């Protein structure tokens, strides 16, 4: 008995020992992530990278919220109707209360694009060339959009510099694959970055498909969107002839008529903002419920912040009284606002009907580029090219689709420019254009209510580069005044 016991113990301890010794293997595999070699050996891997690029656009620190609201409340279109602390600084144009795009989302998107552009044509990446070209087109287009937004937040438009300060973002055109790629760089001038954006958009035009307005093709890069962005770039750049040409060619192949046909009819305008995709969309990001955490809808969505159609919505931001007064009585765009009241606010407040959460629980797609912009871009370019007649025609075409009659046909000079600016203001209210439109024209930032105007020469026109980046990178220059 005793011997048996002893043997069984000996056996067991031997067994434990063997188990121990056999487990010397230190190989482990990250089962929920891939290595670059595995991820990027075929074109579908690059397609997934492109998906990442697009999914960044709807993040709340970009077009999902900030890029739609901040440029409006930094100027005169919006006001706070409830004091939660959010956007209070932006409304008052406080020190450092600006837009922050110098972050890993935007630059991560640029890195996604760089990754595609550098790697996808490698012969070891399997897949059809057509498919590769399409993804490359996406990458060029998105890189252009990311850099364009960085330029307008952090730099003065070329020719509009204050005290000669001409720097824009840091420009990177190759991906960061290893640590040594992440070198410390200096900021490029806006001019240099604009040249790159121009080149990227032209490249993308040769690769992207033409899709019709408001079709599902607008969920990705397409020729119409690229041309519209190009016309906007030229307008910001002061290259007005090119701006007009780009707008015209876009309108031609998109079927936008000089009388405005191709845009929504006045009666459809408000409803258009509750359609997926928006019938006037040229570029729109699709958002799904899975993109959000359980509380993102109520905490961060455009719908929750600007509207009260859901009882639990925050509704902290409404139209400024000045914006409401700017609408003509018949303007259908005025119906994008619904009059209501808010505790603690004297008089009516206006909730948005642009951001309606029509996909349910605050959810909706986000149109980034709409066809109406082409008329406005071209009108402004034509005005700058001394073609007042043409400018008025474009404005009238747009107005006819917004329930309004034509402009006085002698309107010219500053009055005409002001009219064009006003049409832009009304057309794109709560779509993130206002502050940039004033700024690129060198105008002072007009404000609503008691808030003080921000002179164009004020340092708060430009956003501040994050302090941590300035401290990290000695080559990185902060914007003046910070």
């Amino acid at each position, binding site marked *: 008995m005793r011997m048996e016991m002893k043997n069984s113990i000996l056996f067991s*301890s031997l067994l434990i020992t063997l188990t121990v010794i056999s487990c010397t293997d230190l190989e*482990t595999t990250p089962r929920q*992530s891939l*290595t670059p070699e595995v991820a990027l050996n075929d074109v579908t891997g690059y397609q997934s990278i492109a998906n990442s690029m697009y999914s960044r656009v709807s993040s709340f620190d970009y077009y999902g919220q900030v890029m739609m609201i901040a440029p409006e409340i930094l100027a005169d279109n919006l006001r706070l109707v409830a004091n939660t602390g959010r956007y209070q600084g932006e409304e008052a144009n406080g020190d450092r209360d600006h837009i922050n795009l110098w972050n890993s989302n935007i630059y*991560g998107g640029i890195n996604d694009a760089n990754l595609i552009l550098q790697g996808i044509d490698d012969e070891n990446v399997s897949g059809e060339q057509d498919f590769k070209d399409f993804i490359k087109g996406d990458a060029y287009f998105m890189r252009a959009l990311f850099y364009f937004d960085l330029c307008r937040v952090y730099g003065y438009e070329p020719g509009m510099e204050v005290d000669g300060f001409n720097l824009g973002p840091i420009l990177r055109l190759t991906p960061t*694959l290893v640590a040594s790629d992440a*070198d410390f760089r200096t900021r490029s001038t806006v001019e240099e970055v604009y040249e790159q954006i121009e080149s990227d958009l032209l490249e993308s035009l040769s690769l992207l498909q033409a899709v019709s307005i408001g079709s599902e093709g607008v969920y990705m890069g397409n020729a119409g969107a690229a041309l519209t962005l190009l016309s906007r770039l030229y307008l910001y750049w002061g290259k007005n002839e090119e701006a007009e040409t780009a707008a015209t060619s876009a309108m031609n192949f998109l079927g936008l008529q000089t009388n405005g046909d191709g845009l929504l009819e006045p009666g459809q305008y408000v409803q258009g903002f509750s359609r997926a995709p928006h019938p006037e969309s040229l570029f729109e990001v699709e958002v799904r419920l899975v993109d959000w955490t359980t509380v993102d809808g109520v905490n961060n969505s455009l719908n929750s912040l600007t509207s009260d159609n859901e009882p639990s919505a925050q509704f902290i931001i409404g139209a400024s009284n000045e914006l409401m007064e700017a609408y003509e009585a018949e303007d259908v765009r005025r119906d994008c606002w619904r009059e209501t009241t808010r505790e603690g606010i004297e008089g009516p407040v206006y909730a948005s009907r642009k951001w309606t959460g029509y996909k349910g*629980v605050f959810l909706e797609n986000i149109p980034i580029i709409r066809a109406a912009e082409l008329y406005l871009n071209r009108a402004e370019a034509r005005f700058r090219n001394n073609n007042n007649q043409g400018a008025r025609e474009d404005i009238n075409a747009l107005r006819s689709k917004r329930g309004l009659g034509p402009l006085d046909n002698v309107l010219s000079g500053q009055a005409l420019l002001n009219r064009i600016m006003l049409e832009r203001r009304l057309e794109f209210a709560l779509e993130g254009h206002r502050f940039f439109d004033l700024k690129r024209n060198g105008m002072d930032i007009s404000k609503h209510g008691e808030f003080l105007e921000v002179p164009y020469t004020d340092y708060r026109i430009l956003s501040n580069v994050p302090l941590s*980046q*300035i401290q990290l990178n000695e080559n990185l220059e902060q914007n003046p005044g910070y």
Partner: protein
Amino acid sequence: MRKALLLILLTFSLPLWVFSQSRTIRGTVTDSEEGLPIPGATVLVKGTTQGTTTDIDGNYEIEVLEGDNTLVFRFVGLRTQEINIGNRNAINVSLLPEITSLEEYVVTAYGDQTRREVTGAISSVKGEIFQDLPIQSFDRAMQGRVAGVQVTAGSGQPGGTLTVQIRGVGSINAGTQPLYIIDGVQVASGGLSGAGPQNALASINPNDIESIEVFKDAAAASIYGAQAANGVVLITTKRGKQGKTRVRVSAQEGIVQPLGFYDVMDASQLASIKRQAYINAGLNPQDAEAIFGSPSDTDIQNSDWVGALFRDGRMSVYDVSISGGDAGTQFFISGSHTHHQGQIIMSDYSRTTGRMNLSHRINEKFSINANLSLSRQITNGTIDRGNFVNSPFVAGYVSRPNVPIYNEDGTYAEYPSEHLFGYNIVQGVNQELRRGTSYQSVSNLQMTYQILPWLGFTSFGGVDFSDNRDENNRPSTIPAFAAYGGSSTFSDRRIVNSNANANFNINKKFNEIHSLSGILGYEYKGETSEANSATGRGFPNPVLRYLQNAAQPFAVGGFYTEYRRSGFFTQAKYDYDDKYTFDLTVRRDGSSRFGTNSRWGNFGAVSGGWRISSERFMENALWVDNLRVRASYGITGNSNIDNFESRTLVGSSGQYLGRGALRFVQLGNDLLTWEESLSTNLGVDGTFFNGRIIATVDVWRKDSRKLLFETQLPIDSGFGTITRNAGKLRNQGIDFDLQTTNLVIGKFRWSTAFNTSIFSNELLELYEGLDRVGNELIVGKPINFYYAYEYAGVNPANGAPMYYDENGEYTYLLADDDQKYIGSTLPWTYGGLSNTFSYGPVSLEVFFQYQYGNLAFNQDLYNMAQAGSIGQDNQTVDQLYYWRNPGDITNVPKPYEGGRFPGHSGYQQFSTKQISDGSYVRLKQVSLNYDLPKAILAKARIEEMNVFVQGLNLWTLTKYNGLDPEVNSLGDTYGTYPTARQITAGINVTF
């Protein structure tokens, strides 16, 4: 056994001395406490083998030779005494109880040794110190009890996690928590649940613990090479003893109370400050009254949000254990149940544990040990830490007092949507379910085979297994969740953490004075953890909360991750005549977390000890019982980073158009290897005046290098950081531990235990020649500090907040460069002081714990102390002392709706306004205990019985500007769950 052997030897050698010139000394040996004779005590002539034992009446008789001048008296459990003979013929001795801790066994790595032999810096806490304390986890028991170990609760949630730092903070980005080993099983510490902090270490019932040993320097810890850089905490559970079966039952009940509250405004106070803010900002005061009511309205609604959320909780602890055994088999079986309500409604914790420890000796050579434990912990948590509207610690204080909590019919009133997201916090806390349930087992099996008398073989396998389910239900009755019909999230996690080792150990003594011992072994450890979670929305009825009732599947998530580690180790120890001790440890470890070619690291330590008191020249210093110096130097490692941190990873990042998105989520570094910690320790142990004073002093330095450093990349690269081995960090200090018996007068006895640590932490080097990383790390400074604007108070002329700019001048508008180094978050000294008074069967322990010299940051003040200027948050009452008229001297600026004077920086700035001195002294524990007389108990066949009353966290002295300086000394300090005061009474019976 050894004594018996000695006596046999003596008997044989006795005849030899009969012929020598000798005399006889007689006397009686008694026990000092009760004065009773001690039978069987050993009496020895010092320096010889000549000795005898006392008879039944404690009398002895011994022959001494001329020249013999000292007698040694020994008895188990009492202090050994040496008496000078002189010319006396009768010597009566009264032996004191054993108070020295030096003879105790300390459990060290892979084997036991007596404290006398230890050459590393080891501290221990015996189980009896914290037996029956109403703490949920043993890490709490170390707080203030061990020099060099800083224990900080991260939350007042019952059963919550703690931060334990041994000898400073040894790493910047890698983990700084020690390695915990429970009966040989290397366990994962940290949190188990997402529903609230739930301490993985709380699965062990503290009453099951025999002792806790803390290995502080490399000599002690390096046998665990890998992961030992932050020190090692070794927990040994109780084992059965041969003899009569003992049954121990204890029960206690008590209450849990908040330590204190912020004093917030009532409705008319808030209405008046808001009205003023509107007026000062040029707004219409009617608008303020529409929201906050009129300050002159005597019927204004006044809700007590805090009162509706906080409570005095109840707690109870029941514990039973049975232990005993015979020569072959010993057992310890225990069970316990704890229920502990928090100071917040709906917050509670309960735990049930079971344990069976078995030892069996099959024959002379074979023995087997098995420890099995199982526990269940259930935490009903609450949101803790973070500026969340559904956290009672945030919303409870800032909810507007003029808004009713309940409607007239008793249902919850709707909260205004423009404040706190329209969330009625009392409704939210009552109706939202946040429950974490964890089952955990820490078990092991060990077999030992004694191949030769001096050579043994041990094999060991252990597992730490935990299975956790979190349930979060947000019913549609809460308006914020009504839009989508409520939601339920279920998360299941499983962690399997196993380790095994096999080792040969030798132990041999040559020529009576040379002892050699050693160990050679191999160890393996692996951990896998995985989780799955699912959320459903749209429940037809708020009572339904399981996913099959959800109308809409909303989100799924999950992860799987693992790591492996293996190592070889050897240790050799040599001891010469109990005077000189040398110890050498070498260990080689590999970890799957590092680059393929840099996985292995070498660690080790050398140490030595010299017992001065055993030297001849110390013979006459009779007041010195023991005096020993120790020195050690060694290297330990740290691999406490994410499992795949060395790899370049392409991870999923959501979707677009229903197709998965991938992006580079991490840049890899194939050269990544072990972080190293080089530590030097010089120590002195001394026992003086017959054990009345026991002191230990350790002077140490710990240099960490090749830090696993998340070095920054320019964000324009698309990545924020990459982990590299870079930088150097130094911690150094002095640990001091003193135990004294101050007074023994008859039955009265007063003893003191005091420990303190003084340390400093300094960043020696960054990477690539950098001397700072943003405002986060600066060479020459500690690694945790505040870098902020310096608040200069309110300008008496106009009521605007002022700051000091970089040149020390007043400014209203802050620039980046105006931020400055304010001070360290690390205390420079901390420790504890315990005084025990006993009179016969009554004893009283009073224990203080303290830390001194750290700054603490209170983010609650962002919400509650901004002169009623921003948003609608209720304010602390002191904000009423705001600036009113030119010439007013106050710290509270002029209320100004929006908090932004034109041309001034906003009111909410990270400045010294929110930072205060975080030093504190806390009356951590008072225990009063009464042992019932044995004579009475014997009739009821009860061996021992005592009743006790004890209080925890009874009083705090601090200048801190928040609620609890302990919890708030860490991290994000919005809405932290403060520690609670606990008062319990209980009884403890042993049969």
